[in-house]
């Protein structure tokens, strides 16, 4: 672990009106003072905290004025990281920010690692764990929807949901505690039936949050998707529709696409990690092609969404049947969108054998493809709960998911113990469930339950 004073340019590289440099750590002020000269000739410390001070950045050695800027000093713990923080707003431009940054580094700061400001904020209790993760996601966001969702997480929407759920477990746990520790008082603690249905309700809410994982993933990290179809059916053409530029080589020669290429693309708000695969063909022309097909099949196995392409201008053939076999095998665990290609040519395909795949979409080379229809189909498939998305009650990573699953497991265990009268074990299991849930936000149960007991129950023994 590193406790040095860190500095970095916080705005993205490139030209802009303003750029922001950030310094954090116990030496932040000392570092800044070496290169900052306020016009007022007052010292930074003489200003109130978080006051924007106008002045010059002066190089350490030659004492050359590099830029005029606004400096803000946030004294610990009242800063983003919880440490002493100095922010310097200078003119935007890679050269000038680079020069100022190197002056900061010369004055004793070290270069911040990616995410280090947020990590320090978390360590100093300034950010909840989910909020910290939200910031990481926000920075990584590849789509607007992802950015919106992360920003909700940063603002604590998920945290709120978690603390609401933990309040409910706390309610049950404190009732059980009071019941066990104050057996002779006529406390209005929950009866077994009431307790069981209360816990059932919490499990349902946790389950709902767990279900949001799919949506969260769809938006945040992407759904693995694959295009399948026989050679020359138009897979690369379809693929390029997503890319908007020709990244895959599109030719009419079957089997040109020999390896798997994967790109993050969007369909509406859903992020897809779309793989282009080798054409599906009964007799591999050569060894290389065979590897391509095998790979395609394995990619299809790992994907969650399959775009199945069929040539509408030809009757169904043996290679199409191979594709259909694959789809029949996996139609229960994967989402499939059938696409009919070459719709500008005469229709010769009988659609009957494809009926089990659902409504197809139509693609022709010349005609504009209705991308919005595709987007809404994909969104319907992966954004299961629009209101949860709206509220930001979405989990987006495995850590959160694992803890929620553990919570559900422990809650169900607690229910069993309550039902068979082992209240002592039940109370411990409820505590563990609470800890597992609170861990999502890096908190612990501690004295919380006890405080609840005393605020809820009139205990006088």
């Amino acid at each position, binding site marked *: 672990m590193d406790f040095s004073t860190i500095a970095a340019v916080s705005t993205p590289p490139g030209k802009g009106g303003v750029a922001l440099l950030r310094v954090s750590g116990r030496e932040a002020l000392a570092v800044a003072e070496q290169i900052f000269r306020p016009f007022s000739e007052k010292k930074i410390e003489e200003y109130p905290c978080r006051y924007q001070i106008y002045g010059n950045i002066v190089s350490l050695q030659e004492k050359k004025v590099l830029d005029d800027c606004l400096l803000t000093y946030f004294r610990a713990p009242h800063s983003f990281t919880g440490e002493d923080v100095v922010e310097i707003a200078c003119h935007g431009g890679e050269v000038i920010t680079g020069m100022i940054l190197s002056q900061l580094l010369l004055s004793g700061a070290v270069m911040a690692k990616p995410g280090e400001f947020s990590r320090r904020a978390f360590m100093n209790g300034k950010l909840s764990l989910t909020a910290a993760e939200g910031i990481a996601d926000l920075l990584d966001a590849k789509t607007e929807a992802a950015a919106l969702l992360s920003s909700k997480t940063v603002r604590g929407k998920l945290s709120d949901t978690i603390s609401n759920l933990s309040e409910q477990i706390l309610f049950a746990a404190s009732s059980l505690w009071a019941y*066990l520790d104050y*057996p002779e008082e006529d406390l209005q603690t929950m009866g077994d039936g009431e307790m069981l249905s209360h816990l059932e309700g919490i499990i349902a809410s946790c389950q709902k949050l767990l279900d949001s994982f799919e949506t969260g993933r769809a938006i945040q990290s992407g759904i693995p998707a694959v295009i399948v179809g026989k050679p020359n059916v138009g897979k690369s053409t379809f693929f390029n529709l997503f890319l908007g530029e020709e990244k895959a080589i599109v030719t009419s020669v079957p089997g040109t696409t020999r390896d798997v290429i994967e790109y993050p693309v969007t369909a509406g708000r859903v992020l897809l990690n779309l793989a282009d695969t080798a054409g599906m063909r009964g007799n591999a022309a050569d060894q290389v092609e065979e590897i391509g097909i095998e790979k395609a099949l394995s990619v299809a196995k790992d994907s969650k969404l399959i775009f199945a392409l069929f040539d509408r201008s030809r009757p169904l053939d043996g290679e199409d049947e191979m594709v259909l076999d694959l789809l029949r095998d996996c139609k229960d665990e994967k989402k499939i969108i059938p696409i009919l290609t070459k719709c500008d040519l005469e229709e010769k395909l009988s659609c009957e054998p494809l009926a089990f795949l659902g409504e197809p979409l139509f693609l022709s080379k010349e005609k504009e493809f209705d991308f919005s229809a595709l987007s809404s189909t994909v969104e319907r498939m992966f954004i299961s709960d629009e209101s949860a998305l709206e509220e930001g009650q979405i989990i987006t990573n495995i850590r959160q998911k694992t803890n929620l699953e553990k919570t559900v497991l422990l809650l169900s265990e607690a229910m069993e113990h309550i039902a068979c009268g082992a209240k002592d074990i039940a109370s411990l299991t409820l505590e563990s469930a609470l800890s597992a849930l609170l861990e999502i936000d890096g908190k612990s149960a501690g*004295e919380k339950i006890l405080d609840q007991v005393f605020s809820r129950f009139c205990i006088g023994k």
Partner: protein
Amino acid sequence: MEEMNFFAGTCQVAVIGAGHAGLEAAFAAARMGMDTILFTLSLEAVGNMPCNPSIGGTGKGHLVYEIDALGGVMGKAADATSLQSRMLNLGKGPAVHSLRQQSDRRAYHHYMKIQCENTPFLRLIQAEICQVKKREGGGFSVVTRFGAGYDADCVIVSAGTYLNSNIVVGDVSYSAGPDNFYPANFLTRSLEEMGIEFRRFKTGTPPRIHADSIDYDRCEVQFGDEDPVAFSSDTDKVAFQAKKQKKCFVVYTNETTHEIIRSNIHRSPLYSGKIKSTGPRYCPSIEDKVMRFPDKERHQLFLEPMGQDTKEIYVQGLSSSLPEDVQNQVIHSIVGLEHAQVMRTAYAIEYDCIDPTQLKASLEFKDHPGLFGAGQFNGTSGYEEAACQGLIAGINAALRIRGEKEYVLTRRSSYIGTLIDDLVTKGTNEPYRMMTSRCEYRLLLRQDNADQRLLEDARRFGLISDERYEIKKALFAKIEAEVARAEKTFLPPSHQLNEILASVDSPGVTGGIRLADLLRRPGIGYVQLTAVDTARPSYEAEVFERAEIEIKYAGYIKRQLAQAEQFDQMESRAIPEGIDYHAIEGLRLEARQKLAQIRPENLGRASRISGVSPADITVLMIYLNMKEK
């Protein structure tokens, strides 16, 4: 303050205060061979019960069992003076079973006084200790009100609620200890001069009424258990069970009661601001209950006998500091107590106690080697909480004098360990009461296995007799053998067995089934299986009771043991004394301050300090690793 004007003698251990903490401390030290003096303000106050006339209860029962397992006296005294015995929480799981006994408080006091008088190496002296002074070259000197000075190697302060104590009733307030005993108005200042920090707590006690003035027809009766259980392993079970038990009664407050309280609340010193000290949340006064829970239609009150012969009755739940006239109205508004004759008025009492984070887990002051604190002086509440601390302080004073390693009970070993760990690492903002829910290892720390958990320690300190040790070892061997038998005995399927199973809605069996697996089923125990478990050895009932718990809970006990192992790892990482937390980069300011103040002995304890985050512990761990290299 009185100065010493004559030298009165020496001892190895001086115990200040002969309440529940001081008694156990003095007995333990004396029985470990230390020349011990037990000072008390009044010989009439030895082992006094100024509040509820009972020993045990949830969590507290566990403490008493552990005290008994370590050779303490409380359990024996409670058994000997028991008026009624009840096992609480039956049917909620063995880990929360808690024994409580109503006690004859005068008999209890008498029992303890006689014990003191007959314990070798122990001198019981009536004297107020006004000063504790460090002597040059080590040790202390304690000075009485009359100027008598005694030298002692170790001093245990167990002054209870007597320090600068004030009794408050309405707008009347005067300097007095509990039960109007004389207060100790000098000792606080003397200890403050040593640098010890004090705070002020408050507690209270309900009124006592005359038994003949109660309308019993309008009260609910509460009987003792049919098969009463004793606290102490040394108690003669047959004689104990033969004792006739007294009844308790239950009455309730009503809307009239509440109205009287509400309209007089301005006369309560708690609400007028006259009392500013912190009282316990779990033991609120009746005015607190009414004001804080306005929706509650009635509050339950217990009528408990104060003794075998006396007609004094304790009104559990009616603790108050309202003026006497209001108290009388309150009592007379209660159905069954319309004509109750009050013998003692309820009162609140304020007193000085210390912030227990000044202590080590051995209960010795961090800054004053040889000086110990125990009981309510340390910020706890309750006789049992006090007694167990006294016992630990007494043992540690003796160990210190012998030059041996201090005795520290961990959270996973006992309720006592949990209580002390809570006190010295987290501190407390209110008089601390033990509860089962405070123990995260409560499946391991049951009343029934307290002897098993602490037997070897008790033996090592010489606090239990060889005879008792042998009896216990034999008992544990039988339990172990029985658990093993249950795990390897298969019962054949039979009509009889399936009938038994059907009677508790348990599925029938078609093949042979392991006895242990049957015992793990809900509703099935040794009692149910007597007819089919034909090869059962003829042990005493206790063997089967305890084997059954071990078998039923085996899976969960195993899980807790695994957690306990993780706990042990953290506890075994010692933090060297004298570490400068302010020099550790990366620790948050709050964590630095807390760690520097509390000076935890190991990483586990550090992690439980409020205000120290897991990230701080990581930083500390890395720092310790680097330092070791």
